């Protein structure tokens, strides 16, 4: 099963003719993702070569979804146009299929654009937005799978650990930690480091809890906001599977933006200490160091009789 994205999901690429879009589309095809084409306004009818094969380009997402019956789209559109790309995809999926997954990789989208885009997506309940400013989502398969984003595919393997994280490279670190104890992943979701984004921790936890393939969860948070605290409180009531957690930014000074637009401690709120405390109060096994995630996960699996 896995969550939201099946191994054989059909995927479109918005911004496929751009440098980033084409580079990553090529990597996705190489991994085994079923890319069915892409969309760049004004370049409809052209084709793009990925791994030596031509892929069609459409002018609009309506045309692209009509033609391919795609399940998901991934956005590599520059910040000034990215929020509109999200809304176009959401509208097209909702109108044509009533459902769809929109993954936005773009970093640097104005916050007020995202406020609008998120409200737009929320009015279309069948559509799910992941990101922006995220590595994407990957469901490893048996030889290949669906990699929708910029993560290095080869570090993953199919398995039973669900991973959700705000960060990119720290997610890869978490993946490597599961591999170090011979565990693969069901689905890894990067929800992104922006203050206003689509899918949050709680939706991921709920999906992992409901997913048969997932038997344990790794949750990686960072300073800023209180999404981690809310997720921990929710998990305490609703999640029966073991959760292992880590929060980045314990040493970050207040008031400074730490790379991610959302990673800022303001008014003494959103500290790592607060988040770790919330995790512990919810019975989430915490690693104080990401290199310990594997060991803590192994203990949790043993305690749950899963190893």
């Amino acid at each position: 099963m896995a969550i939201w994205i099946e191994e054989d999901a059909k995927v479109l690429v918005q911004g496929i003719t751009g440098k980033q879009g084409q580079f990553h589309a090529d990597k996705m095809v190489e991994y085994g993702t079923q890319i069915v084409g892409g969309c760049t306004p004004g370049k409809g009818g052209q084709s793009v070569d990925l791994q030596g094969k031509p892929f069609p380009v459409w002018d609009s997402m309506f045309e692209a979804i009509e033609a391919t019956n795609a399940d998901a789209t991934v956005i590599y559109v520059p910040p000034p146009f990215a929020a509109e790309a999200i809304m176009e995809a959401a509208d097209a999926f909702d109108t044509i299929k009533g459902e769809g997954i929109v993954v936005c990789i773009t970093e640097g989208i104005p916050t007020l654009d995202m406020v609008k885009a998120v409200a737009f997506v929320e009015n279309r309940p069948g559509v799910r937005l992941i990101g922006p400013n995220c590595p994407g989502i990957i469901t490893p398969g048996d030889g290949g799978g669906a990699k929708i984003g910029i993560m290095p595919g080869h570090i993953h393997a199919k398995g039973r650990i669900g991973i959700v994280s705000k960060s990119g490279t720290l997610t890869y670190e978490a993946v490597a930690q599961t591999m170090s104890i011979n565990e693969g992943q069901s689905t890894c979701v990067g929800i992104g480091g922006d203050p206003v984004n689509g899918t949050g921790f709680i939706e991921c936890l709920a999906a992992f809890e409901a997913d048969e393939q997932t038997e344990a969860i790794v949750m990686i948070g960072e300073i800023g906001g209180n999404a981690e605290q809310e997720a921990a409180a929710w998990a305490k009531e609703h999640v029966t599977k073991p959760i292992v957690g880590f929060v980045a930014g314990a040493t970050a000074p207040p008031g400074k933006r730490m790379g991610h637009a959302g990673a800022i401690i303001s008014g003494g709120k959103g500290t790592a200490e607060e988040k770790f405390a919330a995790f512990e109060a919810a019975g989430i096994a915490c690693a104080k160091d990401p290199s310990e995630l594997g060991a803590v996960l192994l203990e949790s699996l043993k305690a749950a009789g899963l190893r």
Partner: protein
Amino acid sequence: MNIHEYQGKALLKANGVPVPEGVHCTTVEAALAAYDHLGSKVVAVKSQIHAGGRGKGTLYHPESREHVMDGGVKIAFSRDEVNTYAANILGNVLVTIQTGDEGKIVNNLYVEAGCDIAHEYYLAILVDREDKSVLIMASTEGGMDIEHVAETTPEKIHKISVDPNAGLLGYQKRDLALALGLTGQAHKSFGKALSSMYTMFVASDCAMLEINPLVKTGDEQIVALDAKISFDENAEFRHKNWDELRDLSEEEDVEIRAKETGLSYVKLDGNIGCLVNGAGLAMATMDVIKLYGGEPANFLDVGGGANEEQVKTAFSIILEDPNVKGILVNIFGGIMRCDIIARGVIAATEALDLDVPLVVRLAGTNVDEGKAILAASDLNIHPADDLAEGAQRIVELIGGVA
């Protein structure tokens, strides 16, 4: 990106929000001319820095650090007082609860006409991350620290959440005005000012707009007596005028240079420099250094696709900090290949004559090639297999726990 009060007030005024008349000055002479021009018996002489707590701050001489004056915002009742206050403020260092002990040099002054205050309110507009909407917060407890009000009397803070597709609605403005006890002319004046502020917040891509205090005058007008405004940096591409509003003397020079190269750098107080790819991993690297008894000297994210040149710039920025006694490089290669990073590290250490211990942890794409390249060089580079080992190693190499 933060702007000064005088810039914020000009923006408010241009958008139809009433503010007291005021003049921006950079010299004592200009402050006196401003006093003459305003023709107000009472004026406020206000230090302009990007930090709160100015009124309760203290001014010191920039070199001798001798105490000059208490209070960075003064009320002057005469021309002589304006002269004294302006001279005491300009060119001196203002230390407030938000500046840290080193304080900030005051180069800008705002001289503002006095105002007949009947009541002080608090008003802020910001993006609420949890609710994913624009939030308006107001309180009858103006002029006070709002965090304190939130803790002690949360019932005195009123909030409205604006639907981005509907905008600020009439009933929301009325409800908020009533919650603040505003009636008659003041109620109308508040509604008008709030509409203007919300429109400006959206049009100018503000991250935060805080007016503390927002005052009701004796003749029932609503006036913004202070203005703390920051912009969402992500929206810079559609606001060409921000370049003029940016006060570079308020930003760390090295942080600006890092940003120009596509690096994200924040200086900290420790002695172990960090060079990492990805913001989350960069924060985690700092945390683990601390966990093993060291102190990080910086946050530095080289991003997802750094090249050899950026790695070199990153090293030179780290080494500008005289406190740095050692460097930990932590790269999880995804799109970025470890062999490229390894070459970048070698090129940088050679070009910069690196003389502090360097620990390099590589993982991910092409890790074996990367490690082989480092091992083959005759440079003094210590490899590490995971983050914990890397952190322990660099802490040992600089002489143990800080």
